[in-house]
């Protein structure tokens, strides 16, 4: 059963996500004995050993990590030309690196952004930049710790596909795309703030609306 939402429906996923093997123990960062998941923007996302250890399916559509794409670009070029390669970014990787490695972003049928944890909102800004400044038009997919309560925000900043975490229902999650009907601020889905979309009332008309419950002091 697919857990992919695209265009407001749960659909079959024709893409295979390629991941890197976990980093060697020495590269895992710890603070007070706890593993630190977040990295600082621009940090290297993989070691040479991890890249060597990655298993790349030989056929079908695959989403490869940016670092793997950068290292194996030559090997993957024919498949990329065939529309079989999508690229995914860690939330701390730089869009500039992605752009430098592909030239035309719209030659990619799919870009995915990884949310290492629900609370990491870097991917929101990356998505907005891809859709606006860099003019990316194809599928933009959220992967990783993707849960229904982020979907409304993700939709607004330009995602159109959401790989809901495997242990949660994508069917249930669909409802959250409609959490709010008319937002205040502009974003990627609609750049106009509310006051450019609707005629809103000023004070004198607002007062008449609440007159029944609150009358001003006469003095």
């Amino acid at each position, binding site marked *: 059963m697919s857990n992919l939402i695209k265009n407001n429906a749960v659909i079959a996923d024709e893409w295979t996500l390629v991941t890197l093997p976990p980093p060697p123990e020495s590269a895992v960062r710890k603070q007070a004995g706890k593993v630190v998941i977040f990295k600082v923007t621009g940090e290297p996302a993989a070691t040479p050993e991890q890249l060597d250890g990655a298993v790349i399916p030989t056929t079908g559509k695959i989403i490869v990590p940016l670092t793997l794409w950068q290292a194996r670009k030559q090997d993957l070029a024919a498949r990329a030309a065939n529309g079989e390669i999508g690229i995914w970014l860690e939330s701390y990787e730089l869009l500039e690196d992605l752009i430098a490695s592909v030239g035309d972003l719209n030659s990619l049928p799919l870009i995915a952004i990884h949310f290492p944890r629900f609370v990491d909102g870097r991917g929101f800004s990356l998505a907005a930049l891809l859709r606006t400044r860099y003019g990316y038009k194809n599928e933009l997919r959220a992967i990783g710790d993707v849960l229904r309560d982020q979907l409304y925000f993700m939709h607004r900043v330009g995602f159109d596909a959401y790989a809901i975490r495997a242990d949660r229902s994508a069917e249930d999650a669909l409802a959250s795309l409609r959490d709010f009907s008319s*937002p205040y601020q502009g974003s990627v889905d609609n750049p106009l703030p509310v006051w450019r979309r609707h005629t809103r009332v000023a004070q004198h008309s607002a007062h008449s609306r609440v007159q029944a419950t609150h009358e001003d002091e006469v*003095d």
Partner: protein
Amino acid sequence: MYIYDDIDQRIVDERVAQYRDQTRRYFAGELTDDEYRPLRLQNGLYIQRHAPMLRIAVPYGLLNSRQLHKLADITRRYDKGYGHFSTRQNLQLNWPKLEDVPDILAELATVQMHGIQTSGSCIRAITTDQFAGVAPDEIVDPRPLIEILRQWSSFHPEFAGLPRKFKLAVSGSKEDRALVQAHDIGLEFYLDTDNKIAIRVWVGGGLGRTPILGTVIREHLEWQHALTYCEAILRVYNIHGRRDNAYKARIKILVKALGAEEFARQVEAEWQHHKDGPSTITQAEFDRVASFFATGRHTTLPDHDAAFEAAKAANPAFAAWAKRSAHGHKVPGYRAVTISLKPTGIAPGDATAEQMDVLADLAEKYSFGELRVSHEQNIILADVKLGDLFAIWEGARAHGLATPNVGLLTDIICCPGGDFCSLANAKSIPIAEAIQRKFDDLDYLHDIGDLELNISGCMNSCGHHHIGHIGVLGVDKDGSEWYQITVGGKQGSDASIGTVIGPSFAAEEVPGVVEKLIETYLGQRTDEERFIDTVRRIGTAPFKAHVYAKEAA
């Protein structure tokens, strides 16, 4: 004040429904504790030491009587009949039940209130001067811009998962009362050399573990660009702010790491893409929002009232209260009145449901039905006629609301501390009470004069101890509670961070230490010199020497 239209109302109603469903899923086991946590936090709900704590937004501290009556009603029905006004100009409930919170939010929505973004790693409720719109030194009323910013920041999709909390303050007066230098972003209205209104943009201020005053990254911004400029700042922060260590995740650390100039350069570069875009504020939208804060409802009065003067002459207690509680007003014949929530023995900022009802009624009768919450944790009736001051005093006094200590040593800013807060290292409320008891002589208090004493129970600094003239910080040493004392902090346009005077003290020593600081001041002050002025003139050394002097044998 601002009144919701259908769009505002639908957003808070939809928020209630969303939060109700999130809570349902949590109780049904569909959300783990860790997953529910960021959701409830963005709605102001913390799990505390004894019970959950719900932080209710009072946008820029402004309330109407109907809202305050509703808050009183909620504390009776869902809590223990009192609430705590915090240094964020909000109201905190200390004892709500987790499962009742959706119902409380639904109640709040009926009076155009909510708990949206009062906590969590998002843009928090925006704060300002409690005298906005009435202060004699005001250049521009900041409230219309703050309301526009409030709407823009509510559920902003790009900034829903920032590295850490993000606080904005806006000031519109000559003397800053909004702590613009102690916020992630501080927007300060001023008149430029052409006598035009402009905004000075401060970034990277904050108290907490690493207290630092902000830096100006743009001296002159036209108000139309306030949203797009903030978007540029937030985007740079969202992408580059650290997320690997919560103590290094505030924007101030990024600004420090990059250097203010480089940070400003990145913001300017980003802003070029936002500038003049659709989020540029139009004059029409500004005027629409400003119409809710319009002046022109005051009566023309002389700035002298014979009955008021007579009441003061006849009643020294009233005169003492009026001296501290009545503040200057733009409009002749009016005063802004601070109601002290700092009587001795009550947690600073606490008010009972009965007191809330009394204040709401007084506001209804004497102050256009509106009230403000100050970051000093008091309540303000902002538009009172001179001739009504006596009636307010009598009404307030009957309910323990007329303590004449506003701006004095016992008007202590104090976080809830170890009695309630699960973050705290030490208790703060009993320290405040012990200090208030030590300084219970009113004449002595008035002689000491203007003094801000701020207490935080931990380095998160909710009690703003770094900018108290005297600051008290609770610290944990080997599992017991100790208190570190700072001197020389100050809020305002000439803000400063206090200096630690030396090794910390046990709880029972703190009132004695404060007394020694005061003795030093009284011995050294010149005429008309406030405590903070004396500290600035002579430095902290004499204070330190007196506090730590060995007792004479």
